[in-house]
């Protein structure tokens, strides 16, 4: 049992260390972003990390792009420009792409919530001077991230064996702390809307 847990923990910890280390490398060497364009999702061009609002907005924009791709496919299918088979294949590809994108953005937003103080998060939101519509969107995005993370935990939960109870508790405590912090951020944003 301990061997499996040890491997899982090792993956988790090495990943955390790589993230911390790479954040500093990219901050000092932003040219890496040009070399590896996938980094543009997480980092600004100057090598600083994007904040919650930037990530949540980009997540929304990417969702809208996917919705627009879907509408285009619906139109082509309705006009018999593509066959049912082509339509279904393309739709599945779109959903798959959306799922992967969501998972990535959820992870990045969740990581910022975990690794920042409430004060840092609040300041990063204040600086945009957002209107109520943008604040509501941001609160909804954070809510969706929390829901997806709970669902992810539920799915992984099925793989846990009863003899790994301590490890399950460890994972559960970790995720519940993060979810509760995400809920706190969400409430803070909703309060800003009310005022």
């Amino acid at each position, binding site marked *: 049992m301990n061997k499996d847990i*040890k491997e899982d*923990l090792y993956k988790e910890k*090495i*990943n955390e*260390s*790589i993230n911390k280390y790479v954040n500093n490398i*990219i901050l000092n060497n932003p040219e890496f972003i040009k070399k590896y364009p996938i980094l543009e*999702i997480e980092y600004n061009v100057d090598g600083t990390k994007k904040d919650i609002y930037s990530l949540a907005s980009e997540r929304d924009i990417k969702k809208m792009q996917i919705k627009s791709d879907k509408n285009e496919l619906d139109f082509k299918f309705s006009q018999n420009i593509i066959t049912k088979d082509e339509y279904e294949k393309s739709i599945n590809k779109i959903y798959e792409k959306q799922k*992967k994108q969501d998972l990535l953005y959820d992870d990045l937003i969740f990581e910022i919530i975990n690794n920042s103080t409430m004060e840092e998060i609040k300041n990063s939101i204040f600086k945009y001077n957002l209107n109520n519509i943008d604040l509501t969107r941001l609160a909804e995005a954070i809510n969706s991230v929390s829901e997806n993370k709970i669902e992810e935990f539920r799915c992984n939960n099925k793989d846990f064996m009863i003899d790994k109870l*301590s490890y399950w508790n460890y994972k559960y405590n970790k995720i519940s702390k993060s979810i509760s912090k995400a809920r706190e951020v969400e409430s803070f944003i909703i309060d800003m809307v009310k005022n």
Partner: protein
Amino acid sequence: MEITIDNLKQVKKEIFESKITKEEKNNIINKIEDEISKILSDFDKKEEMEIDE
């Protein structure tokens, strides 16, 4: 490159490996192993306590 968690992790791993010295890497690994040992020992203690109860 497709936008996925695994691809982003892979890129970060490449950057990490390209910049880190052997000594730094060993220090990180030793630190992680100490941390994991502590976590596993806490698990064992908790489970022993539960059995005793």
